[in-house]
């Protein structure tokens, strides 16, 4: 096989690679923990994806890197911001996309997208973990509920605990006191989700869009958050099967575009 490309997204928590052929078909993908060495994580993610696609990495025609660790990716032919990549990836999967909500491990962003996945405008959270995956991680470990169970659990809640603080550290102590008051866990989790959604919702309000809304990033796997966000934007939100790899997917698409 010839002409395939690699898109790689080195994020704060995970590093994701996508291998794509010239017809924009995903041949394989991988998700590995970034750990303490971005270069090693990038190598590992690309090697794993190559193995799954049964190709030799050195035969790739172009590697496009994105994410916070994009500078650390060896052999990258181009480096692009994750904002451009999430926009390209989301529009490829859901052509009606006009707004992308990407909630990642370390930051969250809302991107307004134009024709062909072009970024028209974007906003990002400020220097604070509230409204990010990290917030959920902290709460998940505090409550001893695995991250991937939080969504379903919150959907079963009858009521909802109120988490008023926007600060991760203070919210954590609120959770501790809710646990001490025997508040049902599912209600606490729903309150935690509400806190994340409110934070991100404040950013979405700055972008007036009428078309489709797509959620990307690891947090989109949490159906509880998606449900609350849908309530907020008053429409069904597109969620990819594997939201975590949308950045890498966008990088691969931009690699194909770069090749012409």
């Amino acid at each position, binding site marked *: 096989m010839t002409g395939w490309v690699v898109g790689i997204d080195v994020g704060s928590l995970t590093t994701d690679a996508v291998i794509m052929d010239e017809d924009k078909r995903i041949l394989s993908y991988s998700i590995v923990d970034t750990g303490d060495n971005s270069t090693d994580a990038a190598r590992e993610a690309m090697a794993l994806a190559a193995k799954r696609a049964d190709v030799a990495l050195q035969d790739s025609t172009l590697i496009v890197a994105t994410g916070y660790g994009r500078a650390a990716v060896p052999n990258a032919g181009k480096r*692009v*911001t994750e*904002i*451009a990549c999430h926009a390209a990836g989301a529009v490829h999967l859901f052509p009606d996309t006009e707004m992308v909500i990407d909630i990642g491990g370390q930051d969250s962003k809302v991107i307004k997208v134009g024709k062909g996945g072009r970024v028209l*405008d*974007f*906003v990002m959270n400020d*220097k604070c973990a509230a409204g990010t995956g990290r917030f959920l991680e902290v709460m998940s470990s505090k409550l001893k509920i695995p991250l991937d169970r939080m969504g379903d659990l919150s959907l079963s809640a009858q009521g909802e605990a109120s988490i008023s603080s926007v600060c991760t550290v203070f919210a954590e102590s609120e959770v501790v006191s809710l646990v001490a008051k025997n508040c049902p866990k599912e209600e606490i989790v729903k309150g935690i989700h509400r806190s994340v959604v409110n934070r991100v919702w404040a950013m979405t309000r700055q972008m007036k869009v009428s078309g489709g809304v797509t959620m990307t990033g690891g947090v989109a796997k949490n159906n509880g958050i998606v449900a609350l966000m849908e309530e907020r934007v008053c429409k069904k939100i597109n969620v990819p099967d594997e939201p975590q790899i949308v950045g890498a997917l966008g990088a691969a698409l931009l690699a194909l575009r770069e090749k012409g």
Partner: protein
Amino acid sequence: MSIASEIRYRFMKDLGAPLILGLAGSKGKRKRAKSRDASLGPPLKCSNRLKEIMTRHYFLARYAEGARPVAWVTSGAPVELLRAFDFYTIYPENHGALCGAQKLGPELCSIAEEHGYHQDLCSYARIDLGVCLSGKTPVGRLPKPDLLFASNNICQTVMYWYRVLAHQWKIPLIVFDTPFNFDSLDQSAINYMVRQFEEMIPSLERISGKTFREKKFEDALRLGKASAMAWGEVLATMKAVPSPMTIFDAFVHLAPIVSLRGLPVTLEYYNVLLSELRERVSIGIGAIVNERKRLMWDNIAIWYKVRDFSRLFAERGMNFVAATYTNAWAETISYMDERNPMESLAKAYSLVILNNNLDHRLRLMERLIKEYQVDGLVIHSARSCKPYSVGQYDLKRLLMERLGIPSVIIEADITDFRAYSEEQTKTRLEAFFEALEGGV
């Protein structure tokens, strides 16, 4: 004022300062020759003169105590009135910017924080309190003031900050209270402000030991106005393509109009700068080598990043040609009119950008974008300056809707780089560059 202090001051002014500055200048020239970036155009010849003026100002300040009445003044206070009494003026905000540029912000802020001042307080205020508490300053020594002169036309923080200074030193504080301009400035507000000036005069006479002379006040007004207009013309040269200077230069060349307003040296300096810039325009010399995109800046400079940003943007062929911040000293001071001194002074100082409504700011930004052919906007959300940072998200959205201008908000602080994240800023700026270049 003592005779010994007077003699020492005059000696330093006429002989000491020129000698010491002459020596420092020749050292500086040798050092500067090396570090010029390839993407930047030739440096402004005027810069040496500017450095000389500001160094001399802070140098002489050390000897002003006892020889001249000394006042510490907020950047938006009507200093022209003080000029009539020969006050030697120190601008803590300008001094704060200087500390910020020398990356001393966190060190000086922490001194204030150790004394209980919160990290959320404006970092100019924290630096100044840190300086007062420790005596540390890169300019050697700041003269202890006889008077504090503040106006709330830039923020409310200055009220509390200057009250602390007044309390600590047990010296008088004169406040010029400017009603916020929600819609338009009415006569009752003007009367209220003029009345304040009238009340200030006897106090200023008492503190300075000098009698108020109208002629001297009018001269200061005339000079202040002429300097502000010259500064406006300096900025207007940046309408040229390519622009003969960048906003990063303007941030630095702003110092005289802020700190030495109403003095002859300021007008003289801007006339020299103006002729250099006009010459550059006439022969097509740009501040950066390859000006492909023209940008506008909103809010106060990020002082510790001025040099890095100047390089970062120049490398990409992007030149900042306008800023709401630098424009602030050209916009309303020119309303001053010596034929109607008090009323015009009230207007000039109460209609400044930070004492004016958001609609005014939107119209101003629209005008600057059109006049300076701006392609994109970088908005600094400054942790220190709440009055300047509030409303920026709305402005961003409205400018996008009305003019299709792409923009980016970067969160930072004017001097305290503990509130600045290099990686996060880099990601935002790179995404902005991608958008400006029409996508990836």
